[in-house]
């Protein structure tokens, strides 16, 4: 209680920070770093153990015959599921700590008054690191546009934020390796930046609902948070609890479906309709993906299994981008502030971008 009254008297209207503990700060900080180190070591140990353990359980404990379809499905699941969950925990924690530095308020401050080009590129990068949930799309949109962030720059942010998220990157990393994960980040950024730039160029401001402009936005009234080191660790742990807690059933379900495909679907089956030489596969995958709504968690393991059976990388990536980048729920939410023509342009430009990327990868790789 003492801490609170102090903060109240000297804070000049800023809210009391969550229980700052200045006494013995360096000591508790050292202990935190030590704990983090132990946690990381434990993580590495478990990570190295799951491969041999999965094989041991499948072939020695349950004694399934090596090479059988069931054994290959079960070994796949027992290895992939803990691996992906472990990667999720580590990366969501790390991204959580990075995100504690980027509040939406700070992002808006960085972007307001920025012209196109530079603004678009910055908005793409900030879209990755700023915490965002699609239910916040409307307040964010209004807050950005009202304080002088150009429409196109705002759209770059709104495209990049959901499409390039840590869950997608983790799963791509875990299942396809870092090259594909990096490819996904780079192409996702490219689509967000160019699509936002094009939307800005088209001068569509008149298709924003008029009530948006009637709102008087006061200067940022939201409290600026100054987090201590422990506070940031806490933020990261909360992110793990919230995101991994929500996403793990999808991950397990996705890997289970992937495991069945892995064990039972014949090689090359997917090549006939998701292969490189099927010219209509990319637009079909994107059209199919737009109304579908799933987080990356459920979709990536299935994608991996499909690719294993001959689906082309470009087609698969395009499908994934369409599913998590463009979604029906977010569109419906944005309809509150955007008129139909602008929504149409938004979906159209992003969809065309994804289709082009799909064709490009099918042609190059």
């Amino acid at each position, binding site marked *: 209680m003492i801490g609170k009254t102090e903060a109240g008297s000297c804070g000049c209207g800023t809210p009391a920070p969550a229980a700052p503990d200045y006494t013995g700060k360096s000591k508790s900080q050292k202990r935190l770093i030590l704990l983090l180190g132990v946690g990381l070591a434990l993580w590495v140990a478990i990570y190295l153990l799951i491969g041999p353990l999965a094989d041991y359980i499948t072939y020695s404990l349950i004694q399934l015959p090596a090479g059988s379809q069931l054994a290959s499905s079960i070994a796949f699941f027992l290895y992939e599921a803990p691996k992906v969950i472990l990667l999720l925990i580590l990366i969501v924690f790390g991204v959580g700590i990075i995100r504690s530095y980027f509040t939406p308020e700070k992002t808006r401050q960085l972007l307001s008054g920025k012209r196109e080009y530079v603004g678009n590129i910055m908005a793409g990068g900030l879209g990755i690191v700023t915490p965002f949930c699609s239910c916040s799309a409307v307040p964010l949109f209004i807050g950005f546009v009202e304080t002088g962030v150009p429409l196109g720059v705002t759209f770059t942010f709104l495209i990049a934020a959901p499409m390039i998220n840590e869950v997608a990157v983790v799963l791509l990393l875990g299942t396809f390796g870092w090259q594909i994960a990096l490819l996904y980040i780079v192409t996702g950024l490219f689509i967000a930046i160019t699509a936002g730039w094009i939307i800005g160029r088209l001068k569509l401001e008149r298709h924003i609902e008029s009530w948006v402009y009637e*709102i008087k936005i006061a200067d940022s009234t939201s409290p600026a948070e100054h987090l201590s080191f422990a506070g940031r660790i806490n933020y990261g742990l909360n992110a793990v609890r919230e995101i991994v807690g929500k996403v793990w059933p999808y991950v397990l379900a996705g890997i289970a479906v992937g495991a069945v495909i892995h064990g039972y679907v014949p090689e090359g089956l997917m090549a006939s309709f998701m292969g490189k030489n099927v010219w209509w596969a990319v637009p079909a995958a994107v059209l199919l993906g737009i109304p579908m709504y799933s987080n990356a968690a459920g979709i990536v393991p299935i994608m991996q299994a499909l690719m294993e059976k001959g689906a082309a990388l470009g087609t698969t990536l395009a499908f994934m981008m369409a599913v998590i980048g463009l979604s029906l729920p977010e569109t419906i939410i944005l309809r509150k502030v955007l008129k139909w023509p602008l929504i149409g342009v938004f979906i159209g430009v992003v969809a065309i971008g994804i289709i082009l990327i799909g064709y490009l990868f099918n042609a190059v790789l």
Partner: protein
Amino acid sequence: MIIKVLGPGCARCQNLEKVVREVVRSLKLDVRVEDVRDMKQIMQYSILATPALVIDEKVVMSGKVPTKKEVEQLITGAIADDKQE
């Protein structure tokens, strides 16, 4: 004292509502808790992310679902500020 929970009805917003009501009940406070779901009203508070918590017309938190303890601190902090003024 009036506490407002701003949020268009998403899952996280409903979580915040629940946490706030639980805290108010457990502290036996005489406060009114209101849910603001209309986007135009929400935007009066110039927030960038939902859900947000408003105590006596002042935004004290936005964009996350705080723990019970954090909500407790925010509310008791606001009460302490009140008494000083």
